């Protein structure tokens, strides 16, 4: 018998999950489940939508209404679900490749529309499932199977990208900082509009090994020592923040939501008759 939370939010017959030992995805998936549980949402009114990749296996494990869709298209499917039934709480669990490369266009346009969906990107900095190819969030200079001499691309800052595209809630959390992550996810789910949370994961198998990060424990210690809350960072000097990664709630703004706007158009044209 697992814990009460796992029992009530996961399909325990499918556990243990497929993720590697030390993979941050398991922690992040639990954070999402805990946030849903803390908010007291009706499980039958929650939809988890995922695409393809390590992260997207989450839809198979979580015991809600779930939709495991095609590569990069999770947000497109989620848009359809939300428009068809705006009562539902729609949460997309996607990866860095799925959201920012293959599904990059769906991602920015969902942000632009400000549709009430929460997009949680499990960012492991690499394409794990297919063997360690570099992704749009692989840091410059780091290695992947397709970048054996180091990646020359600049990496995306996903919350900044989402904000620029029109999302009304953005933030970042890590697999190490669990209580903060759960709080952030609760706020993201509650925002009426598109919320984007980047969850920094840990991939010891591909990203870690390719870049000689020293194994699971060193990678989590790196997050512990290098990720700083945005509120704390405000009081720090720029030199102290060199090489650090900010986390916490970055941006939150009220703006009319897409489904409500759509409903208003229906009303304007004579209503649902």
């Amino acid at each position: 018998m697992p814990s009460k939370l796992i029992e009530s939010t996961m399909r325990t017959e499918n556990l243990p999950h497929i993720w590697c030992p030390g993979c941050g995805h398991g922690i992040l998936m639990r954070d999402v489940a805990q946030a849903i549980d803390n908010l007291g949402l009706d499980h039958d009114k929650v939809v988890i939508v995922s695409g393809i990749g390590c992260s997207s296996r989450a839809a198979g494990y979580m015991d809600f209404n779930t939709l495991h869709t095609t590569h990069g298209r999770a947000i497109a499917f989620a848009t359809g679900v939300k428009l068809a039934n705006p009562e539902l709480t729609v949460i997309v669990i996607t990866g860095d490749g799925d959201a920012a490369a293959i599904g990059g266009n769906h991602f920015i346009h969902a942000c632009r529309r400000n549709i009430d969906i929460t997009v949680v990107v499990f960012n492991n900095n690499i394409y794990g499932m297919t063997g360690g190819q570099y992704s749009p969030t692989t840091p410059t200079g780091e290695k992947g199977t397709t970048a054996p001499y180091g990646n020359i691309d600049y990496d995306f800052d996903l919350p900044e990208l989402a904000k620029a595209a029109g999302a009304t809630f953005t933030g970042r959390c890590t697999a190490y900082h669990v209580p903060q992550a759960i709080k952030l996810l609760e706020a993201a789910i509650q925002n009426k509009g598109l919320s984007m949370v980047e969850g920094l994961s840990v991939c010891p198998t591909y990203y870690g090994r390719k870049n000689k990060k020293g194994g699971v424990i060193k990678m989590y210690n790196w997050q512990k020592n290098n990720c700083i809350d945005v509120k704390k960072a405000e009081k720090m000097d720029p030199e102290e923040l060199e090489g650090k990664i900010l986390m916490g709630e970055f941006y939150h703004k009220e703006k009319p939501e897409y489904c409500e706007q759509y409903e208003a158009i229906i009303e304007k044209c004579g209503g649902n008759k």
Partner: protein
Amino acid sequence: MEKKLVLNSKWCKGCGICAEFCPKDVLAIDHEHCYVVNEKDCIKCGLCELRCPDYAIWLEEEDK
């Protein structure tokens, strides 16, 4: 209500996160599985439960 540390070694992949970040060194890894070495020092903070990627350790409330 007392809380009790429970382990499910079938799900444990022995990653070592729980043992590394336990503030009281209650846990250790042996033969690729987590086990309790020092239960009396456990302060029931639950950090192991929060950080276990495989849901193999948790605090359970038990009636006394």
